[in-house]
């Protein structure tokens, strides 16, 4: 076996083994111990319900996904814009960064309760605003870091060329910040899906995945609910994969930097 | 009885596959008790590999290794040797004293005994005032002294050193060489010392083993006899320069058949 194919086998085989074993054990435990459906549904039933309801799941995923996407794009855009302001006015940077870091610790999605009051009850806007807020801070902190934490040697070099601040921005700071932007997007993508999701637990329009899960459980249709959970996981995964691919395209040679605070 | 007896040792990595590397072939070496022996040679000549074989960190492909009259494995289990690397390898979360106590803890010594031995070792390397400092508070030379104290904590009869002074500046390096010699002379320890530096090898050793790569083998063993005690004056001694020349020529002999890399001449 060539070393390349053997290394592929080595990295794919163990997770495949664990995955299959996990599902098999799940199935056997549920069937064998005859577990009540409201506790745990067997994988076979989940898959069955999932494929039966695929249209409904897709519809709900579109609603939640749209909220996440809009928030992601808007939050990223606003975050990037604000980060330029922060890099220009260091005082603002020192003011806002501790706030953003503190917000990491707080479950800010509870603000949806407040946002729901500020808008009509059928509006999806509160959720979109929530996602925008969450993504905004992630992107803001990371891109600001990328714009400000440049190698002093590079800045000294540009100054020796009598470069203006704008030129330094364009030629040093922005290229430096690109990997940070993509790190932020890779974190924001799943965060946007999660936030869109959690926002649905606060009431308001009932068309998204989160609401469907709660209503199905309320009606004791757990296997169906698991199907929506599967849909939610696929949605989150899709967002992450797309953001990873974008990163791969935009930063050839893998210049992605893992920043310390991350979120 | 010799401290280390190496007979027909060979070591090949990735044996049998297309990227097999013959790190060592047919090494024969006998090191007497109390002797200071240096291993020197260009990159890839197998000197670090040989050291690790003696330490029983890797197994030979063929041949026989006797350390302290036992198999290398038994010598390791009995903690018959102490080891020091280029990176001091101190644990940053332990104080200097606790770093020295590490091998003693692993052997199950009780607290009082450990502390007594650690204090003794600190005095030996002249770092008694720094017992409760942390490694990152010390300079590179001081960290290496702690590493040597740790290596000697179990009072081994054999000391294995892999370029321990490689990361230090020239002045600190010369100072450390003198320190090491006085410590080893006092304790009668056998030393096997891997280095890239010809002056260092000649200054420290009784014999210098010159090795060459592809495949790794011993080219020549240079006897460096300098009369009298070795100290700073030795560095101006003509016997010292003679020794350096002999070693350099032995290495050049290597150069005839192979491109020499990574040797310091100064």
């Amino acid at each position: 076996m060539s070393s390349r194919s053997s290394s592929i086998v080595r990295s794919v085989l163990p997770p495949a083994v664990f995955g299959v074993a996990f599902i098999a054990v799940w199935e056997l435990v549920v069937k064998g111990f005859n577990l009540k459906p409201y506790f745990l549904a067997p994988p076979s039933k989940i898959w069955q319900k999932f494929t039966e309801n695929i249209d409904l799941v897709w519809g709900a995923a579109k609603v939640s996904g749209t909220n996440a996407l809009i928030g992601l794009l808007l939050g990223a855009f606003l975050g990037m814009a604000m980060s330029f302001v922060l890099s220009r006015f260091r005082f603002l940077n020192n003011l806002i960064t501790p706030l953003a870091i503190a917000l990491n610790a707080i479950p800010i999605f509870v603000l949806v309760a407040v946002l729901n009051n500020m808008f009509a009850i059928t509006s999806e806007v509160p959720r979109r605003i929530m996602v925008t807020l969450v993504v905004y801070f992630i992107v803001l902190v990371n891109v600001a870091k990328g714009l400000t934490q440049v190698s002093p040697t590079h800045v000294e070099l540009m100054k020796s060329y009598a470069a203006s601040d704008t030129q330094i921005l364009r030629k040093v700071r922005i290229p430096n910040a690109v990997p940070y932007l993509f790190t932020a997007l890779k974190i924001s993508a799943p965060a946007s899906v999660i936030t869109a999701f959690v926002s649905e637990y606060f009431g308001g329009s009932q068309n998204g995945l989160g609401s469907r899960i709660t209503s199905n459980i309320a009606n004791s249709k757990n296997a169906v609910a698991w199907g929506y959970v599967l849909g939610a996981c696929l949605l989150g995964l899709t967002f992450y994969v797309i953001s990873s691919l974008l990163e791969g395209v935009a930063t050839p040679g893998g210049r992605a930097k893992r920043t310390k605070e991350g979120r | 009885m010799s401290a280390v007896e190496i007979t027909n040792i060979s070591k090949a990595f990735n044996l049998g596959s297309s990227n097999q590397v013959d790190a060592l072939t047919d090494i024969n070496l006998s090191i007497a008790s109390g002797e200071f022996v240096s291993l020197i040679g260009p990159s890839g000549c197998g000197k670090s590999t040989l050291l690790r074989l003696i330490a029983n960190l890797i197994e030979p492909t063929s041949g026989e290794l006797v350390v302290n009259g036992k198999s290398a494995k038994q010598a390791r289990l009995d903690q018959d040797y102490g080891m020091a690397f280029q990176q001091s390898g101190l644990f940053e979360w332990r104080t200097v004293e606790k770093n020295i106590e590490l091998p003693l803890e692993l052997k199950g010594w009780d607290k009082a005994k450990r502390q007594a031995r650690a204090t003794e070792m600190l005095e030996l390397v002249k770092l008694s005032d720094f017992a409760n400092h942390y490694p990152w508070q010390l300079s590179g030379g001081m960290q290496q002294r702690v590493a040597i104290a740790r290596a000697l904590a179990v009072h081994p009869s054999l000391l294995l050193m892999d370029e321990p002074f490689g990361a230090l500046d020239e002045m600190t390096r010369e100072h450390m060489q003198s320190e090491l010699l006085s410590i080893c002379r006092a304790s009668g320890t056998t030393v096997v010392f891997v280095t890239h530096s010809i002056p260092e090898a000649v200054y420290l050793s009784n014999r210098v083993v010159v090795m060459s790569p592809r495949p790794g083998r011993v080219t020549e063993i240079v006897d460096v006899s300098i009369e009298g005690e070795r100290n700073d004056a030795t560095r101006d001694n003509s016997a010292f320069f003679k020794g350096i020349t002999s070693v350099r020529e032995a290495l050049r002999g290597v150069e005839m058949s192979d491109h020499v890399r990574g040797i310091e001449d100064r």
Partner: protein
Amino acid sequence: MTTVMTTKKTSETARRIRRVVLFVVSLLFVAAAWELYKVVGPEAGGKIFGWKLLPRSNNNAMPHVWDMLMRYNRPELRGSDRKIWSVVLAGAWFSFRLALVGFAIGSALGLGLSILMARFKFAERGILPYLVLSQTVPLIALAPLVVSWGGKLSIAGWTWPRWMSAAVLGAFLAFFPVAVGALKGLTSAPSASLELMDSYAASWWQTLRKLRFPAAIPFIVPSLKLAASASVIGVVVAEISTGLKGGIGRLIIEYAREATGDPAKVFTAVFGAAALGLAMSGFVTLADMYMMRNRPKEASA
């Protein structure tokens, strides 16, 4: 030739104080921006490019900051004696304890799994991909399911208490970042140190206790921060899904329902949730400072 570095402890504390002061200032900044919008923004909400985007700025939808703060001192319910601040505090404390339990259990299990993965390479290769994947999918989707076990599930006469679902969810979310971070740390020991332990003929467990685990601490610490906020999220979401009595989540939902009549009320609970998150994060930071007390201080971002 002896150079000894100082521990720079005083400048470290000065930096921390500065951060806290700036945080407070930034809060004032946000309050000012809020009030500014109230002055400038449209009373009945507005449109940007035809989309109903601007929130209403009247006192019902956006109470004055001062009103929100004053609300803490007034009774919770009409005719009741209990002031809101004591209710919110009790709720936040309730949720804090649940989050703490969840955090502790999740972190312990995560650590345990990481040790298993460090010991058996096959386990690492098989399980790690799923752990990494778990960070990208909304695990929170399982919340309603876990929460539904409350009151219904019974094993040998003992019924699953509702609050346990909140703790379990918190533990579940905290587990993953700790498992990933701890594994990274356990495998971070330099090879020279591993060789050193080999030369001492140390067993795997001795090497774990004396080398791998201490070397892992700088990696475990940031993952504990993630775990702390994850457990808070888990607990709050579980409380919202169940309306778990006594928790801050339920208070938020309840007060949100009364928002038309009493707009400032819901903010009191929201701030309570924020305090919960900060308390949890503060607790982990203290633990972090203790664990890293003897390490060299790196310049943080």
